[in-house]
């Protein structure tokens, strides 16, 4: 176990290095000059060059990357070009909110998606099944902005059950998590249905029935753990997809997460922030996958940590 984790950590570090190099290269190639933005519209060309020199942006690519890596080692992600603050500080201040939202969203997607998938698989071919599958597609196909605003109108403005955006208590968390969860739930519902149908065909399901177990026990104890395996792997993958939705949802609900930070940084080509957010997300994704892979053997004892 320790050995396995050790190996995975080394692998993860290599992956993060790769991510940083590729992102750095892409940003380097970007057709926008951050220095001009820093220097402002009244700056003379000399001032611009001066600032470029100070930021080390006149250096060749690999030297720049090398410097970046060196400071990365001490946890320094550089200073934002636009906000002028430590990227590390900016990210740390916003990370908890995003993580919270992510956890909330994952719980929502799992709760909604798995239930839908399970019911659909068990009632395969019936009207319930069809309805649920259409619903899952509606979830996947509706832009999150619209979902978010709709939920906000109904549950916050009209019914007043939840606050109109903001951050702090669990009541603030409900609507944003739900908004993000509805999209993911569609995916999980489909995956779950598919894998559940497969499991229901297995010999051991017949054994379970032959033992005279109750329907609930058959489905939840025998089928679910087997069917959920591919879904677990999906959670690891999911974290990467999250970044897309988090931007929209955070801004609709005024959620102070890194999605908003990333969005503003992209708009203004604030390279240190983009780099930082990418690395942090990559880290989260790698961690998520590691977690998924580590949890899998506990659900399926046949899987060995390799």
């Amino acid at each position, binding site marked *: 176990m320790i050995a396995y984790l050790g190996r995975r950590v080394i692998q993860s570090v290599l992956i993060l290095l790769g991510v940083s190099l590729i992102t750095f290269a892409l940003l380097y190639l*970007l*057709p*926008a*000059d*951050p*220095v*001009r*933005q*820093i*220097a*402002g*519209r*009244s*700056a*003379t*060309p*000399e*001032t*611009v060059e*001066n*600032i470029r020199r*100070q930021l080390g942006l006149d250096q060749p690519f690999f030297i720049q990357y090398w410097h970046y890596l060196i400071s990365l080692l001490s946890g320094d992600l550089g*200073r934002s070009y*636009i*906000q*002028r*603050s*430590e990227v590390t*500080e*900016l990210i740390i*201040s*916003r990370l908890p*909110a995003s993580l919270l939202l992510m956890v909330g969203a994952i719980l929502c997607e799992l709760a909604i998606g798995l239930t839908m998938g399970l019911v659909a698989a068990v009632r395969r071919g019936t009207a319930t099944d069809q309805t649920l599958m259409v619903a899952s597609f509606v979830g996947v196909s509706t832009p999150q902005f619209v979902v978010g*605003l709709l939920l*906000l*109108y109904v549950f916050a*403005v009209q019914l007043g059950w939840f606050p*109109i*955006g*903001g*951050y702090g208590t669990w009541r603030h968390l409900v609507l944003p998590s739900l908004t993000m969860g509805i999209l993911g739930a569609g995916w999980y519902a489909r995956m779950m249905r598919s894998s559940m149908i497969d499991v229901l065909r297995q010999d051991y399901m017949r054994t379970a029935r032959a033992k005279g177990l109750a329907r609930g026990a058959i489905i939840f104890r025998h089928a679910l753990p087997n069917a959920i395996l591919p879904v677990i792997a999906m959670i690891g993958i999911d974290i990467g997809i999250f970044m897309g939705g988090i931007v929209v949802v*955070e*801004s*609709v*609900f*005024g*959620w*102070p*997460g890194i999605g*908003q*930070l990333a969005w*503003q940084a*992209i*708009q*203004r*080509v604030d390279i240190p922030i983009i780099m930082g957010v990418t690395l942090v997300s990559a880290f989260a994704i790698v961690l998520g996958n590691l977690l998924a892979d580590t949890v899998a053997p506990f659900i399926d004892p046949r899987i060995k940590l390799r």
Partner: protein
Amino acid sequence: EHAVDPNAKPGGAITITYKDDVATLDPAIGYDWQNWSMIKSLFDGLMDYEPGTTNLRPDLAESYEIAPDGKTFTFKLRQGVKFHNGREMTADDVKYSLDRVTNPKTQSPGAGFFGSIKGHDEVAAGKAESLSGVTVVDPYTIKFELTRPDATFLHVMAINFSHVVPKEEVEKYGADFGKHPVGTGAFKFAEWTLGQRVVFERNPDYWHKGLPHLDKISFEIGQEPIVALLRLQKGEIDVLGDVIPPAKFQEVMADPEQKARVVEGGQLHTGYITMNTTMAPFDNAKVRQAVNMAINKDRIVQLINNRAVPANQPLPPSMPGYDKEFKGYPYDVAKAKALLAEAGHPDGFDTQLFAMNTDPNPRIAQAIQQDLAAVGIKASIQSLAQANVIAAGGDKAGAPMIWSGGMAWIADFPDPSNFYGPILGCAGAVPGGWNWSWYCNKDLDAKAAEADSIVDPAKSAERARMWSAIYGKIMEDAPWAPVFNEQRFTMKSTRMGGADNLYVDPVHIPINYDNVYVTDVQ
């Protein structure tokens, strides 16, 4: 001290929302419309404007003197003004602040405004640490020597970049001063929860007795304007920091109760199309004039729910030097076609139109595109992030046409010269510059310098006439097609009090924090 609204009641707290993060509150660095007026409430400069107007008046300075040659300015400072940390502000602080903002290490986007001060070039080049033209005569007197007469200098002393900062605090926080601002302003900084909230508190020691009225202002950050409007409608917040979302504008204006809470006003803004005068076919003035005639400005104004007025010259109507008589180019498709034919493009040509990607700019670009198509010009749209458009504009071979919306010129200070230098003068027509039409007319540069050397306030009308002439000449060459001047619509809660012009203050966007008040305090 200046007059204070007699109806104002002291006390109370208000909440304002913004979509975007507050970047920094360092006066040497902050340069977007959002933190611009926030900084103005935390810091003071030697000069300021009367609330709700563009009229200059002394602020930290009690009085000033201009030498007859217009090259020496001497300011007498107000005594007993204290920084939020309790120390008294003196002339040394003023000098320190200017040395700091011009020092390249500060990386201030406003350093260029101080180009006329003696010694600026040495400091900018890193050869000197201190501006030789700024002298502390005594703790309450400071003298500026300029290399040339500069009529805009008093405005420069009113912009944020020249606001006074205490050395010890700057050194304490270093690069993070922008997150821990300490100034002399009406409000002092209280709290900053990154990504969520910035809170200002009344400065009890503010030199201007009776100001500010409010005890506390909370800026809530990161909320979609459409949601912020919902909260405003529910009475949860007091002022919408961002513009009223276009999707909701008509709903608001159709409801008399809500409409009553919207204040409309002009602003020092012009939206325009630049044409790269160094690129064929826009190197031909006839083509540029044709473009000017091809644009249906009324239709574009209609598209943005009539939230602007059509423009025919670079300067906005509320700017001194605006030429009311000037008729500009009429909307005339036939004439435009004829001009194009004269220029050798009877069948039009293909080109590109760059625009920023936030609503409503892509829409406006599409309207322009259709207008151009009507005279045969086939423009493909490049709708990009702000930074990319700016990069393309600063590249001589980058962008044939740019719609300026979203990045457009909101004046730094209410002076006609502010629309010239970096965006129409030769100085801006350099790689990385902001003169996206690459228009460089040495003649006009000379005329502009001449106008700006008229320092005597008594001759300001003459100076304005000179600027009108300059812009008139520019319009003949037509490097731009001015499209509209945006109007401001600020929406507030019912409890907000104060004159309307405080809510559309031309230099304080969205509102003048120092002078507004709430009506529901005892």
